[in-house]
């Protein structure tokens, strides 16, 4: 009976969460669209010749659709974006969508690797700290995690370049290897370029995951069922298994969200390492005042973050039915 009731519950929860996400996505698109119109200056400044006549300006504005009323522009932009058409870059005259997907792949590669490194190290530090609470190991691990969340990562990237590229000459300082990102291969000549940016980026999730895991482990160990298990004669290894099983869902959820933050916040690290990802593209769009490119990149990153949040929520609910009720 209980099992039969469980299913419709989960399905209802899933539907409710998905439906609640739709207005958020619409709101996010509206903000992305509005960004162009809060921007001071003429969005066509980079394509118009300095001596352009009003007539020419009008023609080009009509070409990009800038002459229509805002609601109409928004609807046109949104319906096109829904089928993957983000318009044409003002600076390069190439379709925005192609540029974004190419860059997105590069950023995803970097962010996934950084999340994995951060998760492994963060869980390790957090686990040890929570397990040996208030010991010197805990103090050390906590110090490492507070350092991870406090360090300006763009500066850490510079320091790593100074040490490993400038002084030791072991790893390249910038770029994605010979042939740029188009010729990417999983061989050493290319992977070398990924190491420093990925390690730099991993410091953020490492600190946050270490903090989360430490609190989780300390909390689980202080619960009665653990003392009960110990009293029944459970070995240290058995206790360890229970702690991991209870801490894993939350730790994995934090990891999922961190991936989203890294994807959205990669601009600083990509600037330091000239990594050809979405952050780098965003920088280009900002400084060339390329509004279609800016809108499209922000929209893709923000919507990816919303969807990732949804996936994390749903998998949390699937693993732990208590989540659905809250």
């Amino acid at each position: 009976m209980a099992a039969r009731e469980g299913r419709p519950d989960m399905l209802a929860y899933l539907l409710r969460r998905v439906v609640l996400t739709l207005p958020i996505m619409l709101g996010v698109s509206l903000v992305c669209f509005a960004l162009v119109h809060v921007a001071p200056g003429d969005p066509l400044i980079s394509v118009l010749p300095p001596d352009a006549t009003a007539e020419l300006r009008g023609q080009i504005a009509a070409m990009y659709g800038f002459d229509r009323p805002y609601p109409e522009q928004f609807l046109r932009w949104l319906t096109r974006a829904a089928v993957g058409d983000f318009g044409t870059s003002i600076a390069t005259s190439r379709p925005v969508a192609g540029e974004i997907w190419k860059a997105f792949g590069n950023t995803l590669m970097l962010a996934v690797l950084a999340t994995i490194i951060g998760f492994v190290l963060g869980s390790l530090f957090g686990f040890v700290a929570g397990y040996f609470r208030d010991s010197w190991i805990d103090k050390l691990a906590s110090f490492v995690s507070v350092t991870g969340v406090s360090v300006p990562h763009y500066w850490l990237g510079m320091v790593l370049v100074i040490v490993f590229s400038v002084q030791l000459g072991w790893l390249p300082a910038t770029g994605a290897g010979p042939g740029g990102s188009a010729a990417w291969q999983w061989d050493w000549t290319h992977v070398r370029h990924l190491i420093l940016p990925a390690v730099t980026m991993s410091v953020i999730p490492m600190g946050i995951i270490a903090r989360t895991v430490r609190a989780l482990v300390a909390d689980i160990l202080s619960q009665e069922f653990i003392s009960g298990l110990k009293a029944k004669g459970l070995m240290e290894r058995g206790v360890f298994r229970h702690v991991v099983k209870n801490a894993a869902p939350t730790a994995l959820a934090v990891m999922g969200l961190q991936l989203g933050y890294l994807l959205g916040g990669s601009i600083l690290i990509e600037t330091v390492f000239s990594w050809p990802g979405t952050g780098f593209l965003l920088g280009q769009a900002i400084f060339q005042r390329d509004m279609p490119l800016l809108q499209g990149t922000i929209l893709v990153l923000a919507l990816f973050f919303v969807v990732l949040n949804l996936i994390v929520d749903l998998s949390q609910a699937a693993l732990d039915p208590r989540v659905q009720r809250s």
Partner: protein
Amino acid sequence: MSVTASALGRPTPVERSPGYWAGVVRRLRRDPVAMVALAIIVVLVLLAIFAPWVAPNDPYRSSMIRRLRPIGTPGFPLGTDELGRDMLSRLIFGARLSLLMGVTPVFVAFFVGSFIGITAGYLGGKVNTVLMRTIDVFFAFPSVLLAIALSGALGAGIFNGLLSLSIVFIPPIARIAESVTTAVRKIDYVEAARASGASAMTIIRVHVLGNVLGPIFVYATGLISVSLILASGLSFLGLGVKPPEPEWGLMLNTLRNAIYVQPWVAALPGVMIFITSISFNLLSDGLRSAMDIKA
């Protein structure tokens, strides 16, 4: 009858017992890590205020003949930058803009976010729905992306940077304020205060603020370190503060090409950001455990 009503009408203040803040201060003073962090912050603030008297040189005076001198150069203990300006003086003056850019947005967001959250939580109903769904939209952006998108669209400059960062920090603060206020509103003694005729302002001032401000305050102190890193990050990208002003993030940006010539001079501004940010984080952690607030 009227006596009981007026006794209920003047609700007993829920600001925790008079000894509460004294206890927080006492616990905080026994926390050596938090005290060291506080001392560092005080020194940085003093340096920022008294920069013209403390700095050995003019932070704007450049010289083509003494560019990028190493650390330990006589007269320039921390070397010179790419335009020959004294690094030590620029780092000291940099504390002004860097601290201002980092702390102000959290301060603004603390007031605006609390106001939005408390209004939404107290009024409930349609007002709550409109306010909180709008907040949800901004909360749906990764914070770094939102900060860069806003200041990228608005353009560089101190005010635009401050505005963008404030907008980034309002949603999380509003959310906490809203959830605590909604919870407080349902507590029996608040219902009793309302039933006995206490005005909305009295209930908000006494019951809601007394319960809400503590958690938001601790959360906001934790945001300062994030805000410092982000604010300097904006300037590092060429948004935020414009040259020739001394600001740590901007200094890192202009010194980036110097890492092949004077790597350790180029890295110095980041050390300052790091020290400041970790001090605020450690102080916030200390405050959190002294106030016994979880999460």
